[in-house]
């Protein structure tokens, strides 16, 4: 049974797909898109799901929003089983898949919203006011009566959002809501997402953008190749990949002895090497403040070109570390 305080709870969700090619000689390709997803999302919060293309983010979103059945496992949204109680859940959840598709382009934004307002049973007396309200919220009031085919990508994305919140859902699934948006529109979208949470809506957000996840999501999960490789607060995830502080050390190549000395510097909890043409970069992750930049210079006396940069461990670092670790 699901926990009452959870907005989402999944137990061992798997999802397989068979794709078929060819007409006479059918070639079937079997894909395991999700491999046992266990996830818990608290009510009234933003939960971020990070993952590379093909990780299974959209598949999981569709299962949670009742558009896809899991192959195995159970998922509960607002305490209800997404398979058995889909009829109960659908009026209470919003889904924004975004993109160029998913809208009736030959009619206006207002007419699109009227249609979905009717399908969701929004009271007739309230319908027009509610449509005006969401159009204002996504800043589409002036373009409301224009055909959607005349809209830019960003305007369509806003209309997707407007449709998603029109019926005042208790939980909103946003699948990469800012993809393809210009920075200003993306910032407005994030602002809108925050305001929805302030209104008590639980948000389940998938994104590619690390800064977006960091900015919006107190808790997040990293999905890679159909598995959750980590699920925690941003701070704890940083800790998981070695700490809050990162030092990038760059030079024209390091020998094994030098690499070994960097690895054993005090406080280093994680050590990564990368090559960029002639330049080698060593990334040192630290949980404590004990290692200083001048100690790194002292450890590498034969590199006058040495560059050491200290920064806060970014979500991108966390994400790449986790995904790469899973790939290995």
């Amino acid at each position, binding site marked *: 049974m699901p926990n009452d305080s959870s907005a989402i709870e999944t137990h061992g969700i798997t*999802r397989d*797909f068979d794709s078929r090619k060819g007409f006479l000689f059918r070639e079937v390709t079997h894909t395991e898109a999700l491999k046992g997803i266990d996830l818990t999302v608290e009510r009234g919060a933003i939960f971020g799901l990070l993952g590379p293309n093909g990780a299974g983010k959209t*598949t999981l979103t*569709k299962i949670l*929003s*009742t*558009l*896809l*059945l899991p192959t195995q496992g159970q998922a509960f949204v607002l305490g209800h089983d997404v398979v058995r109680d889909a*009829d109960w859940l*659908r*009026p*209470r959840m919003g*889904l924004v*898949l975004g*993109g160029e*598709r*998913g*809208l*009736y*382009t*030959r*009619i206006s934004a207002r*007419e699109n919203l*009227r*249609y*979905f307002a*009717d*399908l*969701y*049973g*929004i*009271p*007739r007396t309230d319908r027009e006011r509610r449509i005006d*309200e969401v159009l204002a919220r996504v800043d589409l009031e002036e373009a409301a009566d224009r*055909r959607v085919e005349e809209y830019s990508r960003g305007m369509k994305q806003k209309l997707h959002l407007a*449709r998603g*919140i029109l*019926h*005042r*859902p*208790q939980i909103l699934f946003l699948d990469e809501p800012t993809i393809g948006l210009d920075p200003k529109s993306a910032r407005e979208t994030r602002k809108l997402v925050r305001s*929805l949470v302030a*209104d*008590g*809506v639980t948000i389940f957000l998938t994104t590619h953008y690390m800064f977006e996840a960091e900015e919006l999501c107190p808790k997040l999960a990293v999905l890679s190749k159909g598995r959750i490789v980590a699920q925690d607060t941003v701070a704890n995830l940083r800790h998981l990949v070695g700490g809050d502080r990162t030092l990038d050390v760059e030079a024209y190549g390091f020998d094994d002895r030098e690499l070994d000395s960097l690895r054993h510097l005090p406080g280093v909890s994680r050590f990564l090497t990368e090559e960029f043409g002639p330049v080698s970069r060593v990334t040192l992750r630290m949980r404590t403040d004990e290692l200083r930049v001048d100690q790194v210079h002292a450890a590498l006396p034969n590199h006058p070109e040495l560059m050491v940069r200290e920064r806060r461990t970014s979500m991108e670092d966390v994400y790449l570390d986790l995904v790469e670790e899973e790939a290995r």
Partner: protein
Amino acid sequence: MATATVQYSRARSTYAALRLSVLQFLADPQWLVPSMIAPVVFALVSFELFRGAGPYFLTYAILGAGMMSMWGQTLYGSGWATGMDREFGTLEPTIQAPTPYLYVVVGRVLWNVISGLIGGGIVYVVIVIVAGGPPAVPNPVGFALLFVFVMVTLASVGVIFAAFYVYTRYAGFIQNIGEFAFYIGTGCMFPVVLLPFVTNPVSLAFPPTWGLDALRYLSIPGYQGFGWGFWGDLAGAVATTVVYLSVAGLVFQRVERHVLEEGNLSEY
């Protein structure tokens, strides 16, 4: 923004789908061709072909031509609209809405019936003008009522056909292959009794077959259709239509379950 739980209404959802169909029709004038212009062209060609064949045969020919066009509009229009939902990517949000998709399809079918009737009305007016008077129909009121009912029989099949468009993106391809077989098999082009006897059971599984035969009994004196006559045809049309409409809910439930298992709602 306080969250709210809303309760959909089937009638309102059906009306919303009908309204959306009207808006899309008005937004795209190309639909005038299959729904309004094509029936007139078919009817005029029939009129020229059978001009000297006597008043009732003329009715017969016009009826066949007109019905063929309206059959296409009513039956395929609904399925096609669902196919467009797939292509536009609107099938997913529509299925995700609380209203069962069946009621959206019913709304679309209703619009197609209405536009089919408008097309039929235009055919009638054009023929009256060209022929210099209305075609001979022994019982015009009965004919008009039965005509509307035949549209309902078409709509009942249209609802089931639309389910195939939800089921698979290949529905349009299959329908294109079967289109003319259906025209012939249900007696749109000529009476089903002219077909080999072994094909009759298949034809009789479709409500329009019964309805069209009844329509010919009513409008063409001396017409020799199925042996059970007008009332037998009418009873068969009512019974098969009721069966189609009754199973529609179950068919859509099964189809929806299938597409959620397959995960092919966004494929087109």
